[in-house]
């Protein structure tokens, strides 16, 4: 992981708003930046420390609440230049403080116990947020205005492009910081504790303390991402600390690939695509996301990152072209199955919701969900697609093994 990849990452982040112009794309990019920080901070627990948390939104959410109050307090009394760019630090330290409080309880045990306690604390915090509307604003939440204070060099943080660059700058800094943390004694011992807590104790480490410190640092970054989402949306509500958020970040990190540092970055991008982009097209987006997650868990537990790395390994050996045909077959089969699946799912959604029009446009075709031909056609497509996937995946595996054998033979 040389300097080049960081420079490329920075350039991509700088250029992204020009490569994808338009207000909607900018909204997506800003959300991606926020979620990248959140997913990477989550992976400090799951991928690096072996801690499966079901309540990570507690830290980002409470960080966001503290930030929104800080921002509102500033709005009342501030006459100087806007301190907005530094506000994520407020969120970060709030996250860190709650990490110290809750982490002390959750990290006492590892494994299933940790997972259960994190879930419990998540529910507890969510309940508290609804119980104290004075501070948390109840269901409606607390809204704010990010443009308070005097602009600095004409930057008001009103336009979303300015917010994007604020998020991008923090995102980049956090990525570098979190990567650097993986290269420290604590970062390495977190891996060791994940692999074998008992052995870690017998080389002198208190595993509880390793987990605790790792969680506190992770909560700091979660708090930063919470603060950025507060600045971006100008509202913080109970949803920010909810189990839905906690589950979402788990999904994002896992889909991207928890064994790799950059996995959650990919996961965050894909996840935002599902949540923000796909939800505009179909009501069934959550179902597609769930299916996608299940398929990844079953067939690619290393996430998208692992699939990428496998291809890169092959490309370096100059054998990627040998996989082209099997991959094309598999992709074609998957597309057929997907088309069938979409036909069925969309029809079901149209019929289950009486308010929606059974008439729909799928793949440029005018279809009616009440038409049996649509059901039969979709079902057939799905069945044929699944059969074809079976066949194609065998071809892929066979060719893959053959290529691996060749490589082994070549290196021996």
């Amino acid at each position, binding site marked *: 992981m040389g300097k080049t990849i960081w420079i490329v990452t920075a350039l991509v982040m700088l250029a992204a708003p020009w490569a994808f112009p338009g207000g909607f794309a900018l909204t997506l990019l800003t959300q991606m930046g926020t979620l990248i920080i959140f997913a990477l901070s989550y992976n400090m627990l799951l991928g690096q420390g072996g801690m499966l948390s079901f309540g990570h939104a507690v830290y980002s959410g409470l960080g966001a609440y503290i930030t929104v109050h800080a921002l509102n307090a500033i709005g009342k009394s501030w006459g100087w230049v806007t301190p907005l760019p530094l506000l994520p630090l407020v969120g970060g330290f709030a996250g860190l403080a709650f990490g110290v409080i809750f982490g002390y309880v959750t990290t006492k045990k590892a494994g299933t116990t940790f997972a259960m306690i994190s879930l419990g604390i998540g529910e507890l915090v969510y309940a508290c947020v609804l119980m104290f509307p004075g501070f948390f604003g109840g269901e409606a939440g607390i809204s704010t205005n990010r443009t308070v204070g005097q602009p600095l060099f004409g930057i008001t943080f009103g336009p979303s492009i300015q917010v994007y660059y604020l998020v991008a700058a923090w995102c980049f800094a956090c990525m570098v910081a979190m990567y650097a943390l993986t290269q420290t004694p604590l970062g390495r*011992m977190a891996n060791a504790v994940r692999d074998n807590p008992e052995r870690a*104790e017998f080389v002198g480490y208190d595993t509880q303390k390793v987990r605790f410190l790792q969680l506190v640092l992770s909560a700091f970054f979660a708090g930063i991402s919470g603060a950025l989402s507060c600045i971006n949306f100008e509202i913080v509500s109970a949803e920010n600390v909810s189990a839905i958020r906690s589950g979402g970040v788990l999904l994002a990190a896992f889909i991207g690939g928890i064994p790799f540092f950059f996995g959650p970055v990919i996961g965050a991008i894909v996840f935002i695509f599902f949540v923000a982009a796909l939800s505009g097209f179909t009501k069934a987006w959550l179902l597609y996301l769930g299916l996608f997650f299940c398929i990844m868990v079953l067939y690619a537990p290393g996430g998208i990152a692992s699939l990428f790395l496998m291809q890169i390994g092959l490309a370096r050996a100059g054998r990627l072209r040998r996989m082209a045909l099997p991959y094309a077959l598999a992709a074609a089969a998957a597309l057929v199955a997907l088309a069938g699946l979409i036909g069925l799912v969309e029809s079901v959604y149209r019929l289950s919701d009486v308010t929606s029009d059974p008439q729909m446009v799928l793949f440029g075709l005018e279809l009616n969900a009440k038409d049996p031909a649509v059901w039969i056609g979709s079902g057939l497509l799905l069945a044929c697609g699944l059969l074809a996937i079976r066949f194609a995946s065998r071809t892929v595996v066979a060719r893959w093994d053959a290529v691996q054998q060749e490589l082994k033979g070549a290196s021996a």
Partner: protein
Amino acid sequence: MSALELRDVHKSFGSTKIIQGVSLSIAPGERHAIIGPNGAGKSTLFNLVSGRFPLTQGSIHLNGEDITGLRPFEINRKGLSRSFQVTNIFHNLTVFENLRCAVLWAHGYKYSFWHRLAKLGGVNRRAEEVLQKIGLRSRAGVPAGTLSYAEQRALEIGVTIAGGATVILLDEPTAGMSRTETAHAVELIRQVSQDKTLVMVEHDMGVVFDLADRISVLVYGEVIATGTPAEIRGNAAVQEAYLGTSLAQAAHA
């Protein structure tokens, strides 16, 4: 002063008495073997000394300091390190990272998240040195879980000694090894235990009589004899209670 001293150590699991009053004194620099039939409580004794299990009664002293009831990492920090009968390493980390993890605390880096591992000269040199010693240099970048059995056993010993502990416990270091692998392991143990106090549980009598300065025989949770290899070989009680003729045979082999 003894490097390691056990005073009237008892351990019961429920009503089952596993260790029944073991007293042992091991001098600094001594290589001490603990032998005994299966189920005699040898591994349990190691687990008591290293803090894995709490004692029921008695006390344990390391370099004159009472370590009874301390937790494993506290005992490790005082200079006692152990290996395991079933290989106990960090499977997803590389061989080099395994050794580096074992060195970090001893070099004072504790829970630091402000040092860069790559720049810790002393730590990296020590890890390299141990890597060389255990003969896994060519495997440095390989995940430990993919090593062969004998290689994993060597790494197990490497992780145990890397921190520079003065008292080393090895639990059946040659278990499951072929003859050549065993010979290799014995050489390795001899090398790494130089100027250290070594306590080992071992079944292979060849290894025991080759390496040990003194031997203790543990039967049903009690030490029935302690002495030099010659004394143990000639001890009638040991012959009777333990391996009988096979001990004499092994010693002659």
